[in-house]
C-alpha cells in the first residue's frame, strides 16, 4: 500500500463513517467508533443523533476524548442519568446503530473484551463489557470496527462478552433476540457484512486472509472501497489533531504548573 495518501486506519474510520446516515440514532463507544460517528456527523450525515452511554443525547463534540467529557454534555440536546440511559434509551430499542470494538472477534460477530485465557485465571484481564452486552442485543443493528490481526480475529473467542450471531443461523432468534446484531464489520483492510463485500484500496485477498483467523469468504463480484474523499480525510485529520492537541496542551500546562 505505497502512497495512497491515507493510512489503513484512516480508511477504516472513514469506511465506518460512510455506513451511517442522518436518520440514525447511534450509540457511540470510545476510540475508533467515536471518530467514525463524528466524521459521519461532520460530513454526509449532519442530522445523525449521537448518544453516549454517560447520558448525553444528541451531542456534537469537537474533541471526544472519553465517553464522559464535559463537551459531550455542553453540546447535547439533553443529559440524563445513567439508569435512564440504559432503560429508556438503549433497552427500549430507540438506538438504530450501536458501534462496538473488539479485542477478539469470531466470524459470527461474537465479541470478547473481557479476558484472554480462563475467566477465573486470566492470562490477560481486559476491561470487560461495560455497555456492550446490551448494546449488542438492544440496538437495531451493530457495526464493528477493528484492525485485522490473527490475535484479534480468531476461530474461537475466549469469552462471550457480547453476543453476535452465536454459532450462526438463527442463534439470535433462539434466544428471543429480535434485533439484527452485527451487520457490518469494517477493518483496516475490508468492509464486510458476513462475506467480504469490499476491499479497501490497494488491499489483496491474501493480505486479508493472512490477518484473519477464520476462513474468509469473499463476495462475488468483490468491490473496491472508494478511497477517502478530500473532505472525509481533512475532517478526520482535523478531529485527530484536536484530540492530540487537547492531550498535549494540557500536559504542557500541567508540566509548567500552568495558570
Amino acid at each position: 500500500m505505497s502512497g495512497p495518501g491515507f493510512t489503513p486506519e484512516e480508511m477504516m474510520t472513514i469506511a465506518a463513517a460512510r455506513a451511517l446516515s442522518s436518520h440514525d440514532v447511534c450509540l457511540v463507544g470510545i476510540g475508533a467508533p467515536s471518530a467514525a460517528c463524528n466524521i459521519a456527523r461532520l460530513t454526509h450525515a449532519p442530522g445523525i443523533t449521537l448518544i453516549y452511554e454517560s447520558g448525553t443525547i444528541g451531542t456534537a463534540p469537537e474533541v471526544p476524548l472519553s465517553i464522559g467529557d464535559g463537551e459531550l454534555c455542553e453540546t447535547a440536546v439533553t443529559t440524563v442519568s445513567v439508569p435512564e440511559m440504559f432503560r429508556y434509551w438503549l433497552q427500549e430499542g430507540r438506538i438504530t446503530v450501536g458501534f462496538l470494538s473488539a479485542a477478539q472477534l469470531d466470524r459470527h460477530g461474537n465479541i470478547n473484551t473481557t479476558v484472554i485465557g480462563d475467566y477465573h485465571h486470566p492470562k490477560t484481564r481486559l476491561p470487560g463489557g461495560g455497555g456492550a452486552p446490551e448494546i449488542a442485543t438492544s440496538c437495531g443493528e451493530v457495526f464493528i470496527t477493528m484492525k485485522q490481526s490473527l490475535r484479534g480475529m480468531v476461530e474461537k473467542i475466549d469469552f462471550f462478552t457480547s453476543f453476535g450471531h452465536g454459532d450462526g443461523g438463527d442463534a439470535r432468534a433462539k434466544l428471543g433476540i429480535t434485533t439484527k446484531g452485527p451487520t457490518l464489520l469494517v477493518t483496516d483492510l475490508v468492509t464486510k457484512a458476513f462475506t467480504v463485500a469490499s476491499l479497501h484500496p490497494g488491499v489483496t485477498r491474501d493480505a486479508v486472509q493472512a490477518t484473519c483467523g477464520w476462513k474468509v469468504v469473499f463476495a462475488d463480484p468483490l468491490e473496491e472501497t472508494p478511497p477517502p474523499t478530500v473532505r472525509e480525510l481533512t475532517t478526520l485529520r482535523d478531529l485527530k489533531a484536536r484530540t492530540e492537541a487537547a492531550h498535549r496542551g494540557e500536559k504542557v500546562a500541567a508540566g509548567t504548573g500552568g495558570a
Partner: protein
Amino acid sequence: MVKFCSLAEALAENLVDGDTVAFEGFTHLIPHAAAHEAIRQGRQELTLIRMTPDLVYDQMVGMGMAKKLIFSYLGNPGVGLLRRCRDALENCYPRVVEIEEHSHAGMANAYEAGAAGLPFAVFRGYRGAGLTEVNPNIRSVTCPFTGEPLAAVPALRPDVTFIHAQKANRKGDVLVEGIVGIQKEAVLAAKRAVVTVEEVVEDFAGVHPNCCVLPHWTIRAIAVVPGGAHPSYAHGYYARDNATYLEWDHVAADRESFRAWMKKHVLDAKPEVFASRVGHLRRAA
C-alpha cells in the same frame, strides 16, 4: 443530620474496615480526594463497588485494600487497561481480589433498585452473554403477563457511598450538574453518604427546579475539597486532566513506580493539594 466537617473526619466517621463502599462518578465528578483519604487512613477488607473502577480503584486495589470488586468496566477510559487491577487478577498481587462482574446495564439497574428500596432489578439484558455463566448473581425472572424471561440482579446497597459534587448550600442540600451519572442512585441506595464539594453557597436560589439536588437529610457528611475530582473534572469548575490519565498508564505499569507515586501523591499528601492540581484546568472548564 448532615454534618459539615473535614474530609479526614467525614471518612473516619463513615467508613470502617470490611465495609461495602461505592466511590461513584461516571467520568465526571469522580471522588478522587475521598478515595485518597481512604487510602491514607488505611482501610482494609473493603468491597469496592463501581461501574467504572478507574484510577481510584486501581490505586486502592494496588494498595491491597480491596477484598472484592463489583464492577462493569475495568478500564482507564480512553487510554487502556488498569494495570494494578490486572496484577491483582492475573497474579494475585498484592493479594487475591474476588470479583463480581456485571454489564453497565446490570449495575445501573442494580443501583436504581437499591435507591428504590427493592431487593432486585429486572431488565432485558445479558442475552447470550458469558457473564451469566461466571456470575451467580445474574438470574432470571419471567414476566407474569407475556412469559418473557428477563434478567434479574440483586440491588446494590452500599454501606457507604462517596461522591464529589459541585456545591452544597448552608443547609447541606447538594447540587450535581452536567453528566449526573449514577450518583443520585448511589447516594440514595447507601446506608450512609459522604459528599465532597467544590464550594458551599448560601442557598440554591435560581437553580432550576428539576436539577439533581440531594436533600440534606439524605447525606451524612459534607467536606469542602476544591479540585477533589481531579484528574476527572467538575462541570463549571475545571476540565478533565487527560494527561494524568495517560501518565497513569505508565505509573501503574510497574509495582515500584506505583508505590513511589502513591507515597508522594497520596500517602504524604493532604486533601488541600487537590486545589493546586486543577489551577491550570480552570480556564478550560
